[in-house]
Each structure stands twice: as structure tokens, then as C-alpha cells.
């Protein structure tokens, strides 16, 4: 069943409740140093393989960038 989430502020639809590992693959971000938050809570990288997106999730995927 399709799910709707807000990913980095943008509405996205996925055909099924994929895992965070699958999401990262889908976004072509595999192997990059990043961190993920779901509805204000950290999703540890160690749980990417099992934790699944749920309909209505607000997801943030962040990385380190230049700044002072």
C-alpha cells in the first residue's frame, strides 16, 4: 500500500512502507555520511535495515556542510 511522507519538507509518495535502508538507496545516498530523524526522533543507522517508514512520517535526512 502506498505511503505518503514529508521528506526534507517535500511531500513524497512511495509504493510501499520501505525500510530506511531502502529509502537511502532509493535516494542514491548509500554510503554517504548522514543522519535521519523521523517525527523529531533520531533513527539510528544501526536500525536502518529494520525500521520502516509509516504513512504521515515527517523525515529529515541531513549531512555536514560548510559553515561557521
Amino acid at each position, binding site marked *: 500500500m502506498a505511503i505518503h511522507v514529508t521528506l526534507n519538507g517535500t511531500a513524497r509518495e512511495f509504493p510501499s512502507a520501505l525500510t530506511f535502508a531502502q529509502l537511502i538507496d532509493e535516494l542514491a545516498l548509500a554510503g554517504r555520511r548522514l543522519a535521519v530523524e523521523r517525527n523529531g526522533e533520531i533513527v539510528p543507522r544501526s536500525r536502518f535495515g529494520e525500521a520502516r517508514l509509516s504513512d504521515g512520517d515527517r523525515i529529515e535526512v541531513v*549531512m555536514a556542510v560548510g559553515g*561557521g
Partner: protein
Amino acid sequence: MNAPDRIAAADVLEVAGKAYRSRLLVGTGKYRDFEETARAIEASGAEIVTVAIRRTNIGQNAGEPNLLDALPPSRYTILPNTAGCYTAEDAVRTLRLARELLDGHALVKLEVLGDAQSLYPNMPETLAAAKTLAAEGFQVMAYCSDDPIMAKQLEDIGCVAVMPLASLIGSGMGILNPWNLQIIIDRVQVPVLVDAGIGTASDAAVAMELGCDGVLMNTAIAKAQDPVRMARAMKLAVEAGREAFRAGRMAKKPYEASASSPEGGLIAPSGSARKKTA
């Protein structure tokens, strides 16, 4: 720590129990590219390097270079910051993400801004965030106003360093209130680092001569005409200022000159020429 105690200590910058040889901390923003970033930071000699945390650019990042490839965490102590956060809640969320991103790394730079024009720190929100972060085991280096009471409260909360502004972020206006900085340095036990407002090498030297434990800067290096050369200038300025502070400057004598050459032994003893022609 008062000034003599600071001199007596071994001359390393100690933050949260870890010793650093360099007292210059640098930001990573506003450079042309990561190559220039890496070269400037190498020239600065900095060991602690601050980075911002931002959303990944979904869908357009295949092959996009990564800042942490240019500045490997194995070589530098990466100091994630909360630049751009205007509430304690956003700052705390950002640093929780940063800790996850950096494999449990606890040393962070907290800054909670008050308004977009001045980028002046919102101290009530900064204090609230510092409390939450300290309780969660973060080692907080806090950007703050140059108000000695605020700095003291941050220390009491458990911040591992306080970082008062010299002047507005990115302004390059140098140290506007050395007297306030001096009070903070005298009253606070944790390291005091000037963060924001440094414009050129003499500003950094003055901060160190005042007794600051270190200086954090970004724009002064990144927006110099030659960032790599300015990075080296800042390294030398911080070292020179620190050494001048440790050496202890001579007393100022505003109304009394003192010749550096011997007073005796002149070929024409003082006043003799005038006496002959009189």
C-alpha cells in the same frame, strides 16, 4: 581561572578534557570549493573545525562531493554547530542529528540566533538549549553575547567553553568591547574563545593578548583575497598574541618616556652644544 593561573598551566588548549596544540578554531563556510577549504584549514593549523548540519539535497546528489571527505574526522576534531537555529528546540534537534552523523561525537558548538539582521545570540534560548544538551551528555561550546553574567550562567549549566562574540558574525569589525571580554576571562573557569567578528590578524592577536584561550573564525579567512595566506596570518597572530600574553606585556606609562639607549657616553654631553653658543 585568573591570568597567572592560565600562564602556569601547560600551554595547550584543553577543552572537555582533551588537549589541542592550536588555539585557532575555524569554520568551513563561504569558501569557493572544498579544495580551497582544505588548503586554508591546513594553513591555519586548526585542529578543531566547525561544520553546519543541513538537509541533504534529495535527488540531485549523485557524485556530489562531501565536506567530510575534504576534512576527514580522523584528522580533524569536527565541531558540528547549530548555525541558522532560532529556537532551543531546533538547536537541540540539530545536534542530536549531528551526534548520530558523527558516530556519537559529543563536542558541539551551540548557537541560537535572535534575528536574521544581526545574527546576535538569543541568550534565553541558548541557556535553555545548553541545559538540555548538557543533561544529554553533550560537551557544549556556547556562542554567546559578551555579557559576563550570561557567560557565567553557561558555565554553571555545564558548558565546556564559552564563546563570546567580538562583534557581529561575519562583520569583520574586530573586538568592540575588550573590557567585557576581560571580565569574562577573569570570572569564568572554562576556556573563553572569541567567536565572531574577527576581521584581520591584529584582531586575533588582541583577543589572545587579552587572555582568551582561543579564537574561532570563518569569514575573516574565507573572504580574504587570498584565504590560504590569511589562514597562515591568523595562525601566526594567534600564536604571537598567546606568547605576548604569556610573556606579560610591559606596563603602560602614558606620561613618561623612557629612553632605550644609555644616557651617558654621548659624544656631546647633554646641553654642551647649547652652552658653547650661548
